[in-house]
């Protein structure tokens, strides 16, 4: 939420860039290369995200060790050549657990974003398109959602829904509906005033056609950008809830759970908390960097 707060107003710029991109002029490719060459941090971020996605789908690419079964002879081994991230209290390879945990964490993040995007987008779309009292009611509702701190709202939903990765993800998603609804409404209002919408209306096009073919495609860009901005927030929120113990049940290596497990051995095995936490931080940093690039730099470059 926090990151979104800073620049949810500025989320508008990318739309133009995307449509300009379809030219396919040879000079374009060189400018793309130059764009990335000037931003080594961005390139590193893309690499990190690609690695995390690969780990989520094909964890065996990175490690052959079993994330759930440990070797009793190798308890609490410090990070080294055999175990990159060391081993835990049951002799399990922490690197293997982090790699396999990517799947759960990525799944939860995507579910949370999908829920927020769909519910918030729909709220904003209806509010912006219908207008009048419907808009007032919906947007007051969104204001109230904003007034409840996101984590508290997620916790209330977890209390009602129960534990588990998917439920936590849904709770995080619902808690971030408000931002999506606001941006969507603003964009629908903007698109609705465009001349081509006026033209379509005066040609007698039905309202649902106007909505789906003219307003929605022109309003959705900034909402997509907001979704990328919110990826990092969602990862953090999901990991907080699983750190508190509301995520997947014990043996599952969710990232937040790994850290809370390692917390008991903070004094003698620093790697159990430090390295999984570092993984979360690097992943969030990378997605935030990419979101920032999508959000402005790319459009400004052109």
């Amino acid at each position, binding site marked *: *939420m926090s990151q979104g707060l800073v620049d949810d107003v500025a989320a508008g710029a990318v739309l133009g860039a995307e449509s300009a991109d379809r030219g396919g002029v040879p000079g374009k490719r060189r400018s793309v290369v130059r764009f990335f060459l000037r931003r080594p941090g961005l390139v590193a971020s893309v690499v990190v995200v690609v690695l995390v996605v690969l780990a989520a789908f094909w964890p065996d690419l990175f490690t052959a060790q079993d994330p759930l079964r440990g070797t009793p002879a190798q308890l609490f081994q410090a990070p080294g050549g055999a175990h990159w991230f060391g081993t835990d209290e049951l002799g399990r390879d922490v690197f293997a657990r982090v790699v396999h945990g990517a799947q759960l964490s990525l799944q939860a993040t995507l579910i949370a974003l999908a829920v927020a995007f769909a519910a918030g987008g729909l709220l904003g779309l209806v509010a912006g398109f219908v207008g009048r009292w419907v808009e007032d009611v919906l947007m007051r509702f969104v204001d109230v959602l904003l007034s409840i701190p996101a984590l508290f709202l997620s916790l209330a939903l977890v209390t009602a829904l129960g534990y588990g990765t998917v439920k936590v993800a849904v709770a995080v998603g619902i808690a971030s509906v408000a931002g999506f609804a606001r941006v969507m409404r603003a964009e629908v209002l903007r698109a609705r005033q465009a001349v081509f919408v006026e033209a379509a209306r005066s040609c007698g096009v039905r309202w649902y056609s106007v909505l789906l073919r003219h307003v929605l495609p022109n309003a959705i860009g900034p909402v997509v950008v907001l979704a990328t901005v919110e990826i990092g927030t969602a990862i953090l929120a999901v990991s907080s809830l699983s750190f508190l113990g509301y995520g997947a049940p014990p043996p599952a290596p969710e990232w937040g759970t790994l850290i809370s497990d390692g917390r008991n051995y903070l004094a003698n095995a620093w790697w159990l908390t430090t390295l999984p936490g570092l993984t979360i931080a690097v992943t969030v940093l990378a997605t935030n960097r990419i979101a920032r690039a999508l959000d402005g730099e790319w459009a400004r470059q052109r």
Partner: protein
Amino acid sequence: MRRYVIRRIAQAVGVLWAAYTISFLVLDFLPGDPVSAMAGAGSDAGPVDPAQLARLRHEYGFDKPVLLQYLDYLGKAVRGDFGDSISTGRPVTATLAEALPQTLALAGAALLLAVVFGGGLAVLATYTNQRWLRQLLLSLPPLGVSVPTFWIGLMLVELFSFRLRLFPAFGGDGLRGLALPAVALAVPTGAIVAQVLAKSLLTALDEAYIETARAKGAGRARIHLRHALRNASLPALTVVGLLAGQMMANSVVIETVFSRDGIGRVTASAVTVQDIPLVQGVVVFGSLVFVVVNLVVDLVYPLLDPRIVVATGRRVGVA
């Protein structure tokens, strides 16, 4: 001015009412039977006696129509009665009031750190002529918002309690016990304050009045602090208001990490045992904090910036 204040307070009450309603809908309306959860809470005994369930249901009014239940609960909530905690049996309001001072101390200290260091970072980054220093400083806030709060807390414990033995790891009273959790809680907020303030400082430094001040011979430091910072601090203030509720919520994680008593610990254990009245109280309390802080920010605004005229009833601040 008075009419404006009354209107804003009425708005705040409206938001609180709606927040209560949303929490009621979420907690009492969704699948899962609160009564069986209640009867099951705290005891691992097998199936609960149906007659006892029915009695509990009646006691809590769950056998009445939902709307009646809602009005009943709302009427009590207006009088500050959020029911009794299921796990301890004590009134929710008293439980929260007892936990509040600890959390207020923590959140207050964290807010102070966030504003001082976040603001200081922004001022220094925009003031310095050293390119490397500016880039270094400006690269810190994105880092701060990317790191999980609970992990920062654990790293601080690891470093300052176990390695250097400077601060107590868990619990701990007084300032020494407060230091590490407050720093951990301050990082995400401070990072956002720094980002917003740096952005608005850069905007302010481009304004014409800076040119005027320079032409009149004012020094660089004076221009930066007296002219630019004064104008640029308003958006940062708004953001601080918006983040206050979030800070309260983050205390759940931080108080768990440091095993400190407070609203956050109460919340975490209430969620764990599905203590619905207590969770509901926490949600409404979070909303109350948000609403009150933003009300204060909006009322302070015209004092800081005389150009804002509230008599017209225009809503000030960033929506």
